[in-house]
């Protein structure tokens, strides 16, 4: 068994430099690597390109990196709910590359899976298709999309073991498994770091081979973006 455990976010993120490309798991602020983001804030690394489905909210998630002007470019599918984001984008401080959500997910997976490019129908006939090769398959138009890669992929899981095997909880899974595949170095932070052998090998979502460093997060705030309740 190859031991991937590091003692803290500080050690896990060692090597992240200004100008690097990071992938960060999560959908909205669900399943985001909270402890790693807090550490990135401390590191003050800037000029980052961040590939993440969303950009957090003003005071949580990637919003914290935006506030510190650490992000040069966001590659996302949806970036609402964030005033600082809007301000930086409109002022031209922040570059934004918007990608259909399914293409974003598949491009991350492709990056991890050694598939350099694939055809998808999503975005044909829209500005997303501009400059991209188009081709008919079975009479239906598709465009060619390329794999995404990252210097560091930072993911958050529910349970993990020293071998880097990960299990996610409910819809906190989202982009984490594909991003885990696509990092040159993949860092996983987990709520519970368990002894090797404690995870059932049938129940693991991300095989440890994709993960280079793993640590137990100190605390998880797990904020809720839209608390919606049923009347009793």
């Amino acid at each position, binding site marked *: 068994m190859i031991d991937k455990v590091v003692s803290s976010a500080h050690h896990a993120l060692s090597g992240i430099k200004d100008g690097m490309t990071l992938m960060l798991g999560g959908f909205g602020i669900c399943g985001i690597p909270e402890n790693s983001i807090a550490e990135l804030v401390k590191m003050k690394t800037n000029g980052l390109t961040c590939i993440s489905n969303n950009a957090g909210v003003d005071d949580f998630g990637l919003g914290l990196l935006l506030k510190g002007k650490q992000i040069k470019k966001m590659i996302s599918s949806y970036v609402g709910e964030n005033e600082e984001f809007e301000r930086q984008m409109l002022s031209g401080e922040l570059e934004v590359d918007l990608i259909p959500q399914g*293409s974003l997910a598949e491009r991350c997976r492709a990056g991890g899976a050694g598939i350099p490019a694939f055809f998808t129908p999503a975005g044909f*006939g829209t500005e*997303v298709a501009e400059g991209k090769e188009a081709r008919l398959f079975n009479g239906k138009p598709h465009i060619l999309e390329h794999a995404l890669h990252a210097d560091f992929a930072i993911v958050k899981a529910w349970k993990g073991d020293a071998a880097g095997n990960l299990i996610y*909880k409910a819809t906190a899974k989202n982009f984490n498994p594909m991003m885990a595949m696509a990092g040159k170095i993949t860092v996983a932070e987990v709520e519970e770091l368990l002894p090797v052998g404690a995870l059932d090998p049938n129940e693991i979502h991300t095989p440890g081979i994709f993960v280079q460093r793993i640590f137990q997060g100190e605390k998880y705030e797990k904020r809720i973006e839209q608390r919606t309740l049923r009347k009793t």
Partner: protein
Amino acid sequence: MLDKIGIAKRIAQELKDGFYVNLGIGIPTLVANYVPKGISIEFQSENGILGMGPFPFEGMEDPDLINAGKQTITALDGAVYFDSATSFAMIRGQHVQLTVLGAMEVSENGDIANWKIPGKMVKGMGGAMDLVASAENIIVAMMHTNKKGHSKLLKNCSLPLTGVACVKKIVTNLAVMEVIPDEGFKLIERAPGVTVQEIQAATEGCLLIDGEVPEMQFAPRV
């Protein structure tokens, strides 16, 4: 004329037993409340759940269990969680039988625009481009006209497109229409109390009227 709930109720009549359905944010979300009795439907949310249940009771909300609108939800028996690549495999692979979503504009040939207004803050397309490019069966739920009173059913969309030639059916506060390729919006049903003339006046694109156009029927839930 229908309100938002009326639009949702009418769309709910399009649901068929055994359908997997993806509902967009806004009016489409309301459709889940009006599934006809006696049929089985499963709702897919593209952030990674099949078998989505109602909102949780207070104190039961789980930050790790949300829908694509980032709202806290519950999971029914038989539910399953999956990652975003698998989620869009379901969508692109046409395993989801029906997509219901809102729109800013729809054109005669079924083009849809619903993600971007030039000059305004752009939030992104989320999963909408994947959904409209993939689904075999797309229903648009929207008001017939915008806040300025301009028609949203156009000869050609003026806003940046989300997808081309993909919308099959439109349910508005005024009418139900089908998109007939190379022809236009075929008027199928009028909303209660709305005349063909009123619908025609609110429709910029070509409205196809074939004989008597019936008023919508809202069957009582059996």
